[in-house]
């Protein structure tokens, strides 16, 4: 049995040391004292992690989850529509509309059929921004008014006992969602490159590292920029050795040899090696498909779906093989969906309603939310922007709330700064 305890500092450290390695023994004992059972439960909750997968650029939801019986889908997308005969059928939503995955998502359909994948259609927020950057900030902060500047996941991590590896972004830059006032989240796209270099060797290199660590420990309140950079340096020093334990991880399955696959394998390594990370961030780009999406289920968009679906299938299977699926939830999102009608360059412009997915052993699979009729008639309430875009139905913050409350065991009202639980799809 695999545990991922960890945390690090202060009051909890004693308790954690006490628990490590002993949990399974206690949980097998019927007469375990109740305080130990409580601790074991709490630790079980702490073992859960969240892997956020961000499709950068505004994913074309209508090509991912295709309403293949809607005649307007075909009339408004004469060249880029996925032919009905090619979609991977996943059934119908609560209103009876038939839906199918993009043909390159064979792996995700396997997971869907196993009941571990939830599709949440038409996610978004009122007055959806068509700007990538505003959209990213809104999804990142969880605040369409953008009064909040830190990220929703950063605020969640702040509620946990401090540790340098609570969050792990497998990107070069730290995404807004993981920005927090207190917790410094490392950006580690590739664990193997995350190592300390010195012009000298042996004991001299160790002296230099000790000096660098001492210099970085200086956090003058009156020099906030200096303190900020030193916190990053401290974060690096505090995580180097634990990350090194992940660098050699190969996985129980072969991962696709692309950036997304490497990042997912790195994340799996961190989960398997139990470095204690609670929130991971992985992203893959190319979704700003203004041109050349590809015809008849092929072309550029199909390649994007291949990268996305093949990577997630490998990750899912790797964790499943190692018995870690029940501790992991994958949550996928994108900053907006795209225009219903294709443009003149075989692509789609920025739109509104987006699709989210959740995958994991604890996920209640199925189709949530309703598919929009794509009829451009003004009387169609499911569209906005003069029939141009799919209108959101499920507030993305209600999905965040569900994940925070029922998966991570946090208080969504505290983290999100309000109660967004109403209308949350019961994906957990």
């Amino acid at each position: 049995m695999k545990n991922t305890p960890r945390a690090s500092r202060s009051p909890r450290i004693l308790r954690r040391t006490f628990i490590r390695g002993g949990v399974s023994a206690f949980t097998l004992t019927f007469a375990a004292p109740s305080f130990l059972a409580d601790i074991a439960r709490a630790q079980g909750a702490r073992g859960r992690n969240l892997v956020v997968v961000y499709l950068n650029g505004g994913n074309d939801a209508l090509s991912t989850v295709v309403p293949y019986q809607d005649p307007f889908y075909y009339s408004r997308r004469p060249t880029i529509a996925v032919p009905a005969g090619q979609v991977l059928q996943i059934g119908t939503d609560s209103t009876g509309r038939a839906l199918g995955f993009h043909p390159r998502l064979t792996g995700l359909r396997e997971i869907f059929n196993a009941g571990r994948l939830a599709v949440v259609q038409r996610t978004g927020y009122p007055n959806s921004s068509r700007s990538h950057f505003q959209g990213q900030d809104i999804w990142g902060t969880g605040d369409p008014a953008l009064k909040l500047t830190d990220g929703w996941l950063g605020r969640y991590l702040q509620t946990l006992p401090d540790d340098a590896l609570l969050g792990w972004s497998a990107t070069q830059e730290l995404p807004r969602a993981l920005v927090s006032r207190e917790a410094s989240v490392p950006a580690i796209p590739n664990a193997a490159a995350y190592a300390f270099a010195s012009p000298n060797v042996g004991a001299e290199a160790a002296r230099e590292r000790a000096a660098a660590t001492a210099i970085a420990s200086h956090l003058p309140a009156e020099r906030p920029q200096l303190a900020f950079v030193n916190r990053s340096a401290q974060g690096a020093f505090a995580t180097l050795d634990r990350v090194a334990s992940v660098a050699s991880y190969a996985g129980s399955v072969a991962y696709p040899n692309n950036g997304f696959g490497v990042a997912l394998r790195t994340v799996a390594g961190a989960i398997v090696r139990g470095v204690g990370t609670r929130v991971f961030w992985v992203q893959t780009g190319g979704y700003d498909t203004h041109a050349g999406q590809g015809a008849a289920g092929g072309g550029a968009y199909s390649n994007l779906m291949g990268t996305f679906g093949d990577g997630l299938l490998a990750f899912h299977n790797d964790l499943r093989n190692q018995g870690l699926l029940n501790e992991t939830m994958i949550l996928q999102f994108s900053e907006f969906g795209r225009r219903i009608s294709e443009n003149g360059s075989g692509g789609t412009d920025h739109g509104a309603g987006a699709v989210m997915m959740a995958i994991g052993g604890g996920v209640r699979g199925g189709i949530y939310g309703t598919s929009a009729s794509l009829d451009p008639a003004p009387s169609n309430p499911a569209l906005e922007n003069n029939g141009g875009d799919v209108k959101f139905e499920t507030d993305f913050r209600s999905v965040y709330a569900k994940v925070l409350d029922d998966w991570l065991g946090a208080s969504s009202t505290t983290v999100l700064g309000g109660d967004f639980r109403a209308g949350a799809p019961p994906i957990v």
Partner: protein
Amino acid sequence: MRVGGGIRIARRQGEAAYDVPPNGQADATMAVNHEHLGHLLRRAGFGASASELSALDGKSTFEALAYVMDVDDQPDDVDSKIGQPDYINVTARGPFSPNSNVEDARQRWLFRMVHSRRPLQEKMTLFWHNHFATAYSKIAGTFGAVQGTKMMANKAGELPGPQGQIETFREKGLGSFRDLLVDMARDPGMLVWLDGRTNTRQRPQENFGREIMELFTLGVGNYTEEDVYAAARVFTGWNLRLVGNALDTSGYYEFVYIPNNHDPTAKTFTFPIYPDGSKTIPARAAGGGMQDGIDFITALATHPATAERLARKLWNFFVSEEIPPDPDYLRGATGIYFANGTRIKPLVQYTLQSRWFQNPANWHGRYAWPVEFAVRAVKEVGFLGFSVDNMRAPLIAMGQTLFEPPDVNGWELGQGWFSTGAMLARMNFASIIAANQRFNLASAAAGAKDSPDTFADYFLERLSPAPFEQEPLDSLKAYLVDGAAWTGSTAQLQTKAAGLARLIVGSAEYQLM
């Protein structure tokens, strides 16, 4: 127009005079000191080389500014130094091809940053590269590596076809912003990057129309979705045509206006397009329809929101990321921008001359971008025997690959540079350059080997970190005697010189410029 009491600057024939108002201006006759000069050259360039420091020693602030600002007074000969001894190396894989091979284009640009005698020119080129952030990979993915590199970096006259986007920034980065916008709207790289080449009246394509308002000029909140649709229609027909063979370095793409693809109907916006306040670009025959775009760009360039946005970006770039722009600065800067017909040079000069720029409280108040950090480290630690190509992989790990901004919004600046992984990459680059320069550093510092104190002082003077406070300074000096007492032996100097340079260049103090 002349503002009473201000400084009037016109030093070259053929260049119109421009006015800098008196408010917010520092005393220009004050003699510049070493610290001040270091600040000016870090911000307006990539750090001071020893020869720049000695050439400007004892000059007045005004003279130092003139050296930086009057780019055209300095020779444009940096490219001719590539491959010469006494300069940083480039690494050739086959013939050095900076116009058609993107790695070589990166090497050439980094070489220029290290050695140009026109530091502000390269600095503004980097500023505009971030502002009009265009990524090579999409262009190369569309038209191949040769055309992709040409569109980004072809130097005028070196290969047939238009000059690359970066070369346009070098040529016009201090000129009229309105003209630069027009050039960018016709720039082959931009027409691929934001899909303008596929924008037709039958099927308008919004990508460029949106970003020119959101990112290049007005900023979010100053336009509506309807404006985006109208803007897309304005640029219908702005396209590219191929001349020659795209697979050959002599073939090229150039801008072409295709009247048949242009939407000739009127376009109405929510903000004024013409000086009379009219918000509608009138219907015109398709043959003359390119004027739609010119009118629209002129309106954007002269919109107050654009002036303020540029002023804020220049403040953050040159003055401070720590404190927001002073209202007086914004008033002065936007006034200068309009008084000088959207020219950038007076705006930059106003900024560099301002009391906020001169104020020592704002020195070391900006987070260095990775290329700024790496180039300055090379200039200050040393470059003989080092190749700009050795900066390539470290810069990727630090989060900044030239010609490859993450998206059209450019890089995430300021604190955004300092993820733990990126900070580790900076520390590790400090290690690379320190190891490479071990012997040069040890012999250069031999005159300061008397004591750990003198040795440390030499390095803190030579490198230019923000001030070290006592506690980290003590750690730095303790390192010098960690492991063995100080003897000043050659072996000790070589070990500790490299280690100390690594510690300083890898410190937080050094990341603040």
